[in-house]
């Protein structure tokens, strides 16, 4: 065997160091990871820093490095459209998350009752998640079109006064975003909860039943508390989707009527790319990042803590 003869050529030295091959084996994992780490450092962390720097400048059409301190943030705070976008995000995000959770839990519990054709139903509930938000936006725009969509259809059934014209009503248009986004994502929340329900130890449920608890009570008192981590991750993912929502707004309302359905994501894009306000756009991007961190950090904190204890 080659290894043996090789070893015999090298009589036992007091402290034989590692061979070159061993050294390479040691460094290979690091070498393999290095490009990804470098990319992450530059394209994620570097770019975040870069955007932050841009947000401190007076850049308009092109990035300039003429520093103006936090003036862009001050402009943002004074910008009515930014406040509309931020308020919209709170309304949209809050409703979107809450409704998705309710629908998700209810559907998951109902599906968990030994339903015939459960697989088919699950598939139907979840398929919208596979679609692009652009497709979702296009189809809901058509459904919500007062002249040709749902409103017209219900009226043609004889309910002449039926009105469902949210998409052209500046006060209601934001709720069309909620509707379309819930349609797209609630099936996914259902899948999360269903997986959680199936993961619960059967003997807990049996024990609760032997203790004399009725089925609804078993769900309320025993099963739902077990699903707390699922709720947590669902909230996390959904709020993440909400903050990033850009394509849906573009396709469904275009931010309109006027800028009634602007969200920070569209605000940033419009200002940075079409209105030549790079400084202001960067400032708004940084605030979006801040929003994500505000959700992410408590989540990661609790995850880490539970893992230490678990």
């Amino acid at each position, binding site marked *: 065997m080659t290894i043996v003869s090789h070893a015999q050529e090298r009589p036992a030295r007091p402290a034989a160091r590692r061979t070159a091959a061993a050294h390479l084996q040691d460094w290979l994992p690091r070498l393999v990871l290095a490009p990804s780490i470098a990319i992450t450092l530059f394209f994620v962390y570097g770019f975040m820093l870069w955007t932050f720097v841009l947000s401190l400048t007076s850049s308009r059409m092109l990035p300039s490095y003429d520093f103006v301190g936090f003036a862009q943030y001050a402009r943002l705070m004074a910008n009515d459209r930014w406040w509309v976008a931020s308020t919209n995000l709170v309304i949209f995000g809050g409703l979107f998350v809450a409704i998705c959770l309710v629908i998700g839990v209810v559907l998951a519990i109902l599906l968990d009752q030994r339903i015939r054709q459960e697989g088919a139903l699950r598939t139907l509930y*979840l398929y919208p998640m596979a679609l692009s938000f652009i497709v979702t936006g296009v189809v809901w725009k058509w459904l919500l079109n007062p002249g040709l969509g749902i409103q017209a259809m219900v009226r043609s059934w004889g309910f002449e006064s039926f009105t469902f014209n949210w998409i052209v009503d500046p006060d209601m248009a934001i709720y069309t975003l909620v509707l379309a986004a819930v349609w797209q994502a609630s099936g996914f929340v259902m899948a999360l909860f269903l997986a959680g329900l199936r993961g619960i130890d059967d003997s807990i449920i049996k024990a609760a039943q032997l203790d004399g608890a009725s089925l609804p009570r078993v769900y309320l008192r025993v099963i739902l508390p077990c699903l707390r981590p699922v709720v947590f991750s669902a909230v996390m993912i959904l709020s993440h989707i909400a*903050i990033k929502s850009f394509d849906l707004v573009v396709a469904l309302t275009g931010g309109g009527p006027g800028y009634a359905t602007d969200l920070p994501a569209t605000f940033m894009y419009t200002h940075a790319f079409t209105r030549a306000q790079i400084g202001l756009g960067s400032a708004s991007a940084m605030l979006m990042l801040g929003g994500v961190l505000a959700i992410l950090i408590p989540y990661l904190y609790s995850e880490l803590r539970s893992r230490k204890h678990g």
Partner: protein
Amino acid sequence: MDNVIRRRTPGARLGRAAVYAVLLLAALFYLLPLVVMLITSFKPLHEISPGTLLSLPQSPTVEPWIKAWGEACTGMRCEGVGGYFWNSIAIVVPAVLISTVVGALNGYALTKWRFRGSELLFALMLFGCFIPFQVVLLPMAQTLGWLGLSSSRAGLILVHVIFGIAFTTLFFRNFYVAVPTELVSAAKLDGAGFFRIFWRILLPVSAPIIVVSVIWQFTQIWNDFLFGVAFSAHDTQPVTVALNNLVNTSTGTREYNVDMAAAMIAALPTLIVYVLAGKYFVRGLTAGSVKG
């Protein structure tokens, strides 16, 4: 809850019926847009009038599909979305392959060859899954310019790979964590090195997670709009951007049937993947989220 004894009273039966009713209503809610999209795409334009949302086409035609594919106007040009469909494919295929390979190697190195600080590096990369992409748009545009990749498909592939490896690394890392480390120890004692252990021992058991990663990356990149609209030009746009342009092009009469056909064209690849591999699709969605 499979093993529960249920009462067989009339009240319980009524409750059971109500459960089915709610589930079916929900199914209708999720199905409605797809049905409307499908039937509208097969209607001639004159059949589209108020109140006919749900009526089946009287004289079904594939004309809207042909128009959407090859003639409809997306902004200035009137060449349909067909070309952009191929653009999307040309972007998606390499981006998915590269990011999956890189993610697999990263996940392997992070779990089976741990070294001081490797957990920290993973956390560092994981953060890339969570940032709002708005925060990288402007520097990315400038960097692509420096690299001479502005408005090119190669540029978009690069962007999707960069922001995809955080997810693929997460998938493979979580999968390989569950593969017993003794396997790697045994292979080391048998004389295999880093790449050979990966190729001979880990990769043959990775089929499920490869499918998850490919499907996830495929849907993410195919459905992307933000990077597409920010970093592409007319001839390199992905199909989502073209679809949006087509729907918002305001010349002539609005051809809703063509819009719907174009939307179906943009939606079909991911829908087909979902129908064929729904199990893995769900796993990707949950793996990308639940456990870190």
